[in-house]
Every structure is written in structure tokens, then in C-alpha cells.
């Protein structure tokens, strides 16, 4: 469990004061967050793990520059997203790699999938491993610009301001990209949910399901 803000502040002060071993304790609550932020962006476990280690090492080396007015978690995520972006750029520069084209202003088709015979995902569907795998793939396949916002807002559950600050963009852009990212996911995922949902038993069947 994450330490309180005060405890965390004290930990940081002690690490800076020379009790460097306490750094382990300081970052423990954020290990998952840092790894997943990078993993979702890079789609590669080895690179993500390597990246996560770099982020924590950088955080240790630059801990002095952390300002107490921001949250430590937001600061770490900012470093993590920069690391992910840097690695993405490197991958893009490599000629054999082809990454999704990002077109910010594309007035594409962002309408959701319409499911007329579908109502609510039964909780059993949420328990299915295959659904989680499909979802993971769907998130990973989002264009990076949309994915980074979705990862911070819906996976890491950062608030709008924290997300905007970690990505260096304004709140309006966070909202727009998040909406598009969510609609893209909905569209991609809807058919899978449909396939594991028992076929509807007619309109009145719903009440008895």
C-alpha cells in the first residue's frame, strides 16, 4: 500500500540525506505502475522491464530535482512516459520496424459499435481469460497518442490534471484523446463481448437472465 504523502515526503528526505537503501521502500508502491505504463506503450516485455529499471534508476539519480508540490507518483509516471516515448522513437527510427501511423487530426470514424441485441456484460464474461487477452491486445494496438492517455487515465487511474502534466499536454487534449481511445476500444471489444454473451432470449428474457 502506498505511504501517505507525509510519510513519502519523509522517506524522500531521508534518501536524500544519505539513507539510500530506503529508496527501495519509496518506489515499491509504484513498481507496477511504472512497468505497465511502459509496457502498454512498447508492447514488449523485455523492453518494458528494461525501461522500468531505467526509470527507477533515473528517479534515484534525480531525486533531488523532485519538487514536493507535485505528487511523487506523477513525477515517476512523467519519467516513465518519457522513457517509453524515447524508446518508441528509437524503434521507429529503426528501418525494419513499422509502427502505427499517428494522425492527430484525422476526422476518422470514432463512432461506437452498435449492438442492438446486446445489453450488459455478465460478470462471468469479465472473468474470462480470453476476454482479458483480447482487451490487452486492443489496448496495445491503439495509436500511441491515444494509448498514452488511456493508459494513464484508465489503467493507472490518474486524474485529468495529473495525466495532462505527465504527458505535457493540456486538459482539453486529454479529454478528446481519451474519448477517442475509449471509443476505439469499445468498437474493437464489442464483438468479443457479444460472442461470450448468451444469445438473447427475446426482449422479455432479459429480466430473467
Amino acid at each position: 500500500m502506498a505511504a501517505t504523502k507525509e510519510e513519502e515526503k519523509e522517506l524522500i528526505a531521508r534518501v536524500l540525506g544519505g539513507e539510500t537503501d530506503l529508496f527501495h521502500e519509496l518506489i515499491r508502491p509504484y513498481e507496477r505502475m511504472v512497468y505497465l505504463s511502459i509496457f502498454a506503450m512498447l508492447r514488449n516485455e523485455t523492453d518494458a522491464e528494461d525501461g522500468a529499471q531505467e526509470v527507477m534508476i533515473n528517479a534515484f539519480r534525480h531525486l533531488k530535482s523532485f519538487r514536493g508540490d507535485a505528487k511523487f507518483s506523477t513525477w515517476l509516471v512523467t519519467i516513465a512516459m518519457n522513457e517509453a516515448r524515447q524508446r518508441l522513437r528509437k524503434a521507429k527510427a529503426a528501418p525494419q520496424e513499422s509502427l502505427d501511423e499517428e494522425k492527430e487530426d484525422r476526422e476518422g470514424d470514432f463512432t461506437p459499435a452498435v449492438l442492438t441485441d446486446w445489453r450488459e456484460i455478465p460478470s462471468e464474461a469479465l472473468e474470462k481469460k480470453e476476454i482479458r487477452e483480447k482487451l490487452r491486445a486492443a489496448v496495445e494496438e491503439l495509436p500511441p497518442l491515444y494509448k498514452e492517455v488511456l493508459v494513464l487515465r484508465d489503467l493507472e487511474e490518474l486524474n485529468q490534471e495529473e495525466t495532462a502534466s505527465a504527458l505535457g499536454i493540456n486538459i482539453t487534449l486529454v479529454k478528446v484523446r481519451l474519448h477517442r481511445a475509449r471509443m476505439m476500444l469499445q468498437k474493437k471489444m464489442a464483438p468479443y463481448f457479444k460472442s461470450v454473451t448468451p444469445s438473447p432470449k427475446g426482449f422479455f428474457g432479459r429480466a430473467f437472465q
Partner: protein
Amino acid sequence: MKLQCKHVWENVSEYIDQQLDAQTLKEIEKHLENCEVCSAILDSTRNILILTADNRTFELPVGYSQRLHNRIAETIGKH
């Protein structure tokens, strides 16, 4: 004026985040009462987001934490 489905779709994200102004919220809720298509879209989106945040959807590699802390210990040692 009757609200169009498209208008509801444009606001799904802000509806989920509870960021709509009172007037829009009221109009959308009224629309949802009578529109199964929009209700399904809203429910599915919401469920997808619940699942995205679920710890089992994205998992850490086995041994990740151990390797991370070993690397940190190594760096701290050299510091």
C-alpha cells in the same frame, strides 16, 4: 428537442467521468431511458474500462520486482 444518439455517443466519455453539465446530463439520462442502443454502448464502454483497470488484465512478469530491486541495489552501491 429530441436528443440524437450521435450526441450521446460524443459524450460517453465525459458521462462516465461525471463531467457533464447538469443540463446535458439530464438530456442524456432521459435519452438513455428510452434508447437501448445508447444504453448498451454506455454499459459496454464502462465495463471495458472496469476490465482495463483490473489487475489481471495487465500482469507483471514473474520475478520483475526482484530484478528491479537487484538493479537498484547495484546502482545504490556504486553511488
